[in-house]
């Protein structure tokens, strides 16, 4: 099959699946159809992404579709997590369906929106036109809004309203930024259809108007940053994550935040080249990253709700990724690696939180104590993922954070290093204080007994195993993919790349 067809299929398959699930009359059938559709998309996407990572960028549809190492890597990670989340959703909602807490209408709403969101996110990664990329992000916002209130309650409505309003405003800012990038091309004399094509802008990045470009990047960073949950624009995030059903929370944390941050990454090489490689944009990223880490650390210490704790942890980790990109050099490499690690780990944590929530009937951490005894598999999954999230060796998150620290050392950014370590230290102590009673405390009352099938235990073992393996050994193909992807962001060079670019492990 030609690449062009494959790229189109990547959007079409999930969209069609969403439509096909509608006439089904049992939630179980709906969920199976959904998993099948997502499975096909994952297979297609991995095939294309693998091709791109091995043999270079693919361009199609009159240059409107484009997949290079950066987008291929992010697409592959996104699809991996989407596959896991879909399998988990089948388990999670299967339980709710059997207990009669999920109506057919809710199941249909969930399935169609879930597939729609996959199509929209794929569109973000494969579009070369920065305007269409924006359309994809806005579409994910609107499609996932109703996923938060699959179960309509006061709290979930409140969370949904905050999410839709704050993110719509944020995304509107991002569009303003996109337009400003368009305005910065006036001196280039591009034809109308070419103005927002990333490949064209990238080829002429040094000729873009720096004043317009700086204004654009501020709007873009604030706009997409809102969607990515960077502090101080993160207010919607803990509410949405805590109120949404667990598969949706996992989707938000593991995918949607990354997708928004990917959009910022797309602009980094343009802005760096356009402003004369002075590191102006990178410094902004470092600032936002550090601020997010510190704000999240402060809130993590005082959390009672497990899912809110995980939500703030997402703010922290997105901050770490932003910081890594901002540091450049080895940091960019580590940031991309951290994207994969965080997504795997956070989805596992939300999986466990959701199933434990069903077992205990609450997400309050005081009442969830002793989870390890009541539900060994998920209790273990939760404790392990919390340990990995706070940066315990030998998990992969520890490795990527260590590389980011090293990038800070290489760049002689001592203040950054100290603030990062301080934030990570506070998170470590704070989250560990929550995690130990959660795992070994006196077991609280149980709403319903824990039964676990083979698929469920796989959902614990696979992400956990991957995190462990990646922490101890990095396959050469992954390392090459990460390096290629990082080169897309940093290839224009900056102060740090010269000294650290060659030191990637």
């Amino acid at each position, binding site marked *: 099959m030609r690449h062009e067809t494959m790229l189109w299929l990547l959007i079409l398959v999930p969209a069609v699946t969403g439509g096909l699930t509608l006439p089904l009359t049992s939630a179980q059938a709906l969920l199976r159809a959904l998993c099948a559709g997502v499975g096909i998309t994952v297979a297609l996407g991995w095939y294309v992404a693998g091709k791109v990572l091995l043999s270079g960028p693919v361009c199609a549809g009159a240059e409107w579709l484009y997949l290079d190492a950066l987008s291929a890597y992010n697409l592959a990670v996104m699809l991996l997590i989407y596959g896991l989340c879909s399998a988990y959703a089948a388990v999670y909602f299967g339980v709710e369906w059997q207990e009669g807490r999920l109506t057919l209408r809710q199941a249909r709403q969930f399935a169609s929106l879930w597939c729609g969101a996959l199509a929209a996110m794929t569109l973000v990664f494969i579009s070369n036109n920065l305007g269409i990329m924006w359309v994809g992000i806005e579409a994910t916002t609107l499609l996932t809004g109703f996923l938060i209130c699959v179960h309509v309650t006061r709290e979930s409505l409140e969370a949904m309203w905050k999410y839709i309003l704050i993110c719509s*405003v944020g995304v509107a800012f991002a569009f303003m930024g996109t337009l400003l990038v368009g305005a910065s091309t006036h001196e280039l004399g591009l034809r109308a259809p070419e103005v927002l094509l990333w490949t064209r802008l990238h080829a002429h990045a040094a000729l873009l108007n720096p004043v317009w470009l700086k204004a654009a990047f501020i709007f873009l960073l604030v706009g997409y940053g809102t969607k990515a949950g960077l502090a101080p624009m993160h207010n919607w995030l803990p509410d949405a994550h805590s109120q949404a059903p667990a598969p949706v929370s996992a989707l938000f944390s593991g995918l949607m935040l990354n997708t928004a941050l990917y959009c910022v990454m797309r602009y980094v090489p343009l802005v760096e080249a356009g402003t004369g490689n002075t590191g102006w944009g990178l410094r902004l990223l470092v600032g936002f990253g550090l601020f997010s880490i510190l704000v999240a650390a402060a809130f993590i210490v005082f959390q009672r709700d497990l899912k809110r704790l995980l939500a703030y942890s997402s703010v922290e980790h997105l901050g770490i990724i932003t910081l890594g990109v901002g540091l450049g050099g080895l940091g960019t490499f580590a940031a991309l690696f951290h994207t994969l690690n965080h997504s795997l780990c956070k989805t596992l944590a939300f999986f466990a939180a959701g199933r434990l929530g069903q077992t205990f009937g609450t997400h309050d951490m005081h009442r969830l104590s002793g989870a390890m005894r009541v539900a060994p598999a998920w209790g273990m999954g939760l404790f392990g993922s919390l340990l990995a999230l706070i940066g315990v060796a030998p998990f992969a998150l520890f490795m990527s954070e260590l590389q980011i620290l090293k990038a800070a050392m290489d760049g002689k950014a001592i203040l950054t290093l100290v603030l990062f370590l301080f934030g990570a230290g506070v998170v470590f102590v704070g989250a560990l204080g929550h995690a130990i009673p959660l795992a070994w405390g006196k077991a609280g009352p149980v709403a319903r007994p824990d039964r676990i099938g083979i698929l469920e235990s796989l959902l614990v073992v696979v992400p956990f195993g991957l995190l462990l393996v990646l922490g101890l050994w990095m396959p050469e193909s992954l390392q090459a993919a990460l390096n290629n992807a990082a080169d897309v962001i940093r290839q224009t060079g900056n102060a740090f790349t010269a000294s650290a670019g060659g030191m990637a492990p």
Partner: protein
Amino acid sequence: MTTNLILVLVVLTNLKLLGSSRLGASIRMVALQGMVLGLLPVLAHLQNLSVHFVLLSLGTIALKGIVFPWLLFRAVREAEVAREIEPYVGYVASLVAGVLALGVSFGMCARLTMPENIASPWLAPVALFSIFAGLFLIVARKRALNQVLGFLVLENGIYTFGVGIVAETPFLVELGVLLDVFVAVFVMGIAVYHINREFDHIETDRLDRLKG
């Protein structure tokens, strides 16, 4: 000349919105602003007029001038509310803030180098002012519907900028954007309806259960 007239109207409608407590009047103002802005693509590009700009004009007038106000009026009827009771920021203070924002917008845009073939030097500052005004409305008002209006004003500001200054944006992108805004307002409308049914009112300051 006519472009300037449109921009003056946009500024006036924004100020009226900042100072108005009646929801009905506010929706009419936003509708008027949408209609007037709908003329902008044609008027700002009279020299190099093409089908693209005419279609964009028609689409904008239909959506921003007719469909959105209709959706919002329906929401008002469902919710049976006519005015904002106690906004976070009073109306006089809002007006003063608006005038200040207008000054700041002109000051900021004086530092940017505009492209040469631009229809009016006021385009960028007025666009920025609309963005500020929209943000202000979202933050300073309690009613969910007023926040939607704020979002529309913000969106109008960005639209003004896009049509006036970055005319080269491909048609498909503009179409996608219009569609997204349409769905956004639609979704917000449904959300308002749900919130109203669940809470018996649509004041977002009572949406305060989720904290920390």
